[in-house]
């Protein structure tokens, strides 16, 4: 801290409110700048995201801003030979030279075929990513964008968050919850959405008495704090969830009949071949009217009491209700069957299922802000640990239905969608979005990532039409993101595209390390002109990039809407908050903001008009704040327009630069919206069954092998993922886990965060169960080699621990760097993704989730 004497010669001492960028949560921060130097970054108490508190990464951002190993000037490759781990021979060039060459290449691509431009981006810098995906790329005319860390992405969970919660993702309402079940997830206990706020709320809830059960192969930070750690075999969470559903529905009869009847498609009748039975004239799904004793459309007037369970004759054919179909579907998953698959004892499965069902306190209500609401004080949450496998869809569906059957969905205590309803600022009523019901009475999400003027997103999920896009958006168009593009480009057998990647713009993602083994992305783009907007010269840039452009860190740039005020905003009661990310210091050296470069490129390419129109669409701007089509705006002007469009004339850019964040209280109808919005949660996924058939037809027409639509199941089931069965000597499964002080490559280059790992026992090591290690003659600290059955070998040092399943090796994510431009991160931690191939065989086609665990064997290697 500045001693008092030093402080006396201070000329400038200001605090600047902004938003963090060390992970995708964009928490509220404020920076302390003295005489032009940023001396402290801490939480911003006025910002509801974090409420003045940060995790270790947020506080360490200063060492990213002033990291001497940052790329500070545009670099051009001089070594024509591209290789993983090769030396690119960087030569510094000017921005004009770089942009001129980029413009000529992009013009040529756009003339010849705009689909030649590929784009990959990191979700950490959410706002600039959205700006590219929402305006530049569609205006340019290319569909070929993908998010490289799709491997870490929610994939299947995002689909169900949309169908059942009308949002991008979910978070438990811990304020009213008394039993939290975590499947492979560390919400508020280590990582996940709105971490800095959820950590406060989860801790408060646990002190109040909320019980936490962590189902995870590794004793990470969630299992450490949980009241009960349930070690499970990786990839078998779906079987456990199916068994719990079976117990709740068929044995303990612990389910919320009213919710399932009125707020879900429980009573809808299903024909024998698995489609909704529909009314002949209106085409609406039929339900059984017990009084009239015949099937009638779900929205018929003066409908009698509707049957939730049972089999009924419709047009002479037996039809089961969806609820009955669900009960029968999970009946085969007895606790004993699940115990054999998951290595979790049947007795533990019974205990957890009963505790979960009883904690839900079905039938109880609670009054919040004068509104009486159903109170379901139990919630089951899951993320990559549970669904990072090629059975992702059915696993996610099984766990999601645990919340649905007890009615704990979008009500106090249950699993909430991340802010799917917003009535907007009291003075302007903007931004505004809310879900509704579609023609079948089923839940249809409101605008998700973009401010869709419809307020809703019609035509979702889009039917499969073809297989001509490398990111499979036309074949599998409903997952929110994918990292599959490189795999499709490499799979010449199944995919033939009538265009090749001519130019790849990579915004800040370390493709080679974040998706799968580096050979996948390298193979796909080795003949492509690659442009990287990077903070460091990382592995991807050194292997592939022809030009590297110095990007600004989040402390040096303006982003008017850092997190879209939605899925990274805390759930539950409290305040809405809309914050600004503004530069704490002017960009150092020749670093430039990606969005500003896009505007300049748009101007040079003559696509400013569509970009402006799409910006209006992206930010939901209407006259008088909409951008005029043919004007070339600066990034600051666009920000000003956006703020005034949302919050009124007097709250433009300068207001936000001064205030930093605008907050207004949430209404109870926004937070616990299910009782207020009559739209039924689809337990049965007819669209998945239909899409499966269409995908199979397209695949058959195009003669594609490896397209397995067996996973397109409308109701949950479990099948083993590829890494599940032991094979000739490969007796273990390797998984990766996340730690609260690392995100991706960027944090490994941060000295303060690296110092944590160097003093912490586990994260730079390969964790192996003590008994398993002794059986293999491995001692603590020994150098070991882990070889995957699908190829790929990783090396590291063993850390013997009792806190991991005996058949599992656990590695912290994203270690093991080798780039020359990251001297700090080089050689630290273990590079897990080398074990992961990326192809159709290892991918759940419904959700494009990759198998994130590998069947491996481990052996000691001589001391290097």
């Amino acid at each position, binding site marked *: 801290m500045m001693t008092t004497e030093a402080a006396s010669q201070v000329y400038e001492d200001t605090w600047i409110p902004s938003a963090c960028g060390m992970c995708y949560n964009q928490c509220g921060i404020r920076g302390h700048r003295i005489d032009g130097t940023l001396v402290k970054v801490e939480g911003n108490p006025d910002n509801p995201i974090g409420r003045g508190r940060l995790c270790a990464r947020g506080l360490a951002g200063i060492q990213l801003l002033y990291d001497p190993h940052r790329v500070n000037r545009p670099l051009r490759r001089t070594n024509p030979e591209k290789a993983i781990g090769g030396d690119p021979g960087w030569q510094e060039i000017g921005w004009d030279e770089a942009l001129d060459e980029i413009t000529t290449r992009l013009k040529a691509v756009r003339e010849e075929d705009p689909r030649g431009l590929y784009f990959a981006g990191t979700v950490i810098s959410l706002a600039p990513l959205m700006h590219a995906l929402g305006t530049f790329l569609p205006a340019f005319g290319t569909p070929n964008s993908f998010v490289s860390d799709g491997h870490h992405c929610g994939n299947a969970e995002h689909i169900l968050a949309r169908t059942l919660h009308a949002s991008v993702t979910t978070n438990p309402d811990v304020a009213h919850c008394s039993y939290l079940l975590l499947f492979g997830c560390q919400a508020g206990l280590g990582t996940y959405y709105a971490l800095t706020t959820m950590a406060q709320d989860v801790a408060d809830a646990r002190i109040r008495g909320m019980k936490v059960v962590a189902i995870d192969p590794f004793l990470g930070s969630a299992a450490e704090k949980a009241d009960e750690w349930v070690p499970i075999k990786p990839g078998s969470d779906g079987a456990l969830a199916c068994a719990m559903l079976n117990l709740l529905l068929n044995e303990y009869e612990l389910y919320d009949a009213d919710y399932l009847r009125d707020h879900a498609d429980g009573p809808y009748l299903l024909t024998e071949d698995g489609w909704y039975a529909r009314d002949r004239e209106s085409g609406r799904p039929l339900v059984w009217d017990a009084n009239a004793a015949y099937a009638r459309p779900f929205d018929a007037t003066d409908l009698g009491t509707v049957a939730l369970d049972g089999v009924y004759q419709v047009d002479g054919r037996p039809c089961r209700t969806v609820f009955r179909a669900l009960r029968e579907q999970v009946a085969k998953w007895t606790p004993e069957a699940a115990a054999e698959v998951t290595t979790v004892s049947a007795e533990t499965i019974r205990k957890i299922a009963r505790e979960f069902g009883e904690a839900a306190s079905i039938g109880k209500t609670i009054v919040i802000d004068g509104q009486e609401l159903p109170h379901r004080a139990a919630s089951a949450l899951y993320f990559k640990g549970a669904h990072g496998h090629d059975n992702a869809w059915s696993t996610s569906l099984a766990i999601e239905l645990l919340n649905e059957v007890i009615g704990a969905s979008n009500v106090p205590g249950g699993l909430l969608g991340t802010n799917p309803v917003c009535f907007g600022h009291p003075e302007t009523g903007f931004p505004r979005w809310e879900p509704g019901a579609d023609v079948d009475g089923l839940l249809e999400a409101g605008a998700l990532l973009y401010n869709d003027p419809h307020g809703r997103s019609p035509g979702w999920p889009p039917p499969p039409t073809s297989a001509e896009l490398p990111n499979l958006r036309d074949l599998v168009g409903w997952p929110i993101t994918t990292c599959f593009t490189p795999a499709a480009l490499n799979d010449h057998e199944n995919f033939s595209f009538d265009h090749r990647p001519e130019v790849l713009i990579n915004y800040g993602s370390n493709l080679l390390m974040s998706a799968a083994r580096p050979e996948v992305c390298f193979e796909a783009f080795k003949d492509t002109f690659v442009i990287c907007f990077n903070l460091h010269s990382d592995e991807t840039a050194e292997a592939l990039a022809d030009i590297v452009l110095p990007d600004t860190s989040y402390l040096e740039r303006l982003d008017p809407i850092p997190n879209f005020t939605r899925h990274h905003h805390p759930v539950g009661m409290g305040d809405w908050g809309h914050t600004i990310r503004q530069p704490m210091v002017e960009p150092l050296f020749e670093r430039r903001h990606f969005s500003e470069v896009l505007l300049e490129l748009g101007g040079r390419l003559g696509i400013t008009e569509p970009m402006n129109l799409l910006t209006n669409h992206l930010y939901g701007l209407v006259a008088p704040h909409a951008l005029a089509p043919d004007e070339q705006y600066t990034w600051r002007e666009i920000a000003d327009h956006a703020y005034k469009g949302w919050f009124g004339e007097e709250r433009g850019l300068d207001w936000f630069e001064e205030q930093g964040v605008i907050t207004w209280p949430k209404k109870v109808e926004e937070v616990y919206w299910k009782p207020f919005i009559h739209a039924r949660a689809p337990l049965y996924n007819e669209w998945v069954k239909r899409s499966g058939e269409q995908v199979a037809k397209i695949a058959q027409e195009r003669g594609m092998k490896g397209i397995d639509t067996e996973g397109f199941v409308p109701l949950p089931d479990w099948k083993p993922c590829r890494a599940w069965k032991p094979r000739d000597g490969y007796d273990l499964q390797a998984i990766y886990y996340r730690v609260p002080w690392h995100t991706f490559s960027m944090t490994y280059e941060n000295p303060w965060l690296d110092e944590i790992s160097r*003093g*912490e026992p586990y994260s730079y090591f390969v964790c192996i169960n003590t008994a398993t290690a002794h059986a293999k003659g491995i001692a603590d600290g020994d*150098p070991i080699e882990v070889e995957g059955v699908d190829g790929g070998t*990783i*090396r*590291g040092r063993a850390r013997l621990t009792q806190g991991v399943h005996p058949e599992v090796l656990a590695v912290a994510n994203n270690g093991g760097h080798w780039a020359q431009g990251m001297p700090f991160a080089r*050689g630290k931690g273990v*590079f897990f993704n*080398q074990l992961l191939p990326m192809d159709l065989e290892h991918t759940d086609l419904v959700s494009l989730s990759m198998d994130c665990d590998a069947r491996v064997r481990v052996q000691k290697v001589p001391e*290097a």
Partner: protein
Amino acid sequence: MGERIDWRTGETMAFPDRLDLQRQDLSQVYRPQREWIDGRGLLIVIAHFFSGIGAGAWLWSTLYDFPMGQALAIGCVIGLSGVAHMAFLGRWDRFWRMLRRPHQSWISRGIWSIGIFGLAAVASMLPAVRDSAAAPVVLGLSVLAATAILLYEGFVYAASRAIPFWRTRLLPVLYIAYGLRGGAALLLAVAAFGGSGFDVRAVEVIKLWVVVSTAVLILLYLVSSTRSGGAARESVAQLVAGRISPAFYGGTVLAGIVAPIALALSRDALGLPELVLLGAIGLASLVGDFYVKYCIVKAGVYVPLVAAEGVGSPG
């Protein structure tokens, strides 16, 4: 492990960083102390060794009126130990500040005693003072200060509440004993290798040295065996079986105890002249004297922050 592995080639790249050792230490249940032994820390052990044998030598050479021994003692305490102390300190330019807390800090008392000893000892050697009436007073003062030096060193370690292995009344007594033994050994070594005028006394000194050595043996046993509590037991374990055992067995036991005895027993077999033999015994003892202090300081282990078997709430 303080090194990186380039997983692609398997080549390891050490990042030699003492701090990494410190970070690993901080995560151990039993954290060894390193500040007073590793790197510049070794200087404090050297300083305490020389001030110990110096004070011991001053006492014996004053008792037997051996001026050369006395000069040597002053050289050890003020010269060697003083320089080592200064080189060890982080900010030696402020060393005089160490005089400010004699009422509570043993180190403060130590520097006072070294200071007074330095003045008194040098004064007592000056012919002007030696012949004046004050001679006995100055000499007495120097003897007192020398005894204080022997005393304070042990207490510096015993005062460290964080390191149970040092926290025993026996340690100061052990340091006094080793100081006296070291002093005698120094004189023997000097006598044997050219210290004229002292040879006749060598025989008494060796008897004296034997007596003190036996006391040392008993104390050493007591210090290591009567320890209870995790950290102290861990220190002993490291001493006798752990990372410090080579220095302990090689230095303290072999050189310090076995070698002198062996030399003494095989006196006629070796056929060395009397004095040279005594000198060798002295030298061996000096090595032992250094290593006993080295081992005790290196074996210091902090009390565990969190007990090995878990953190609980007492009561």
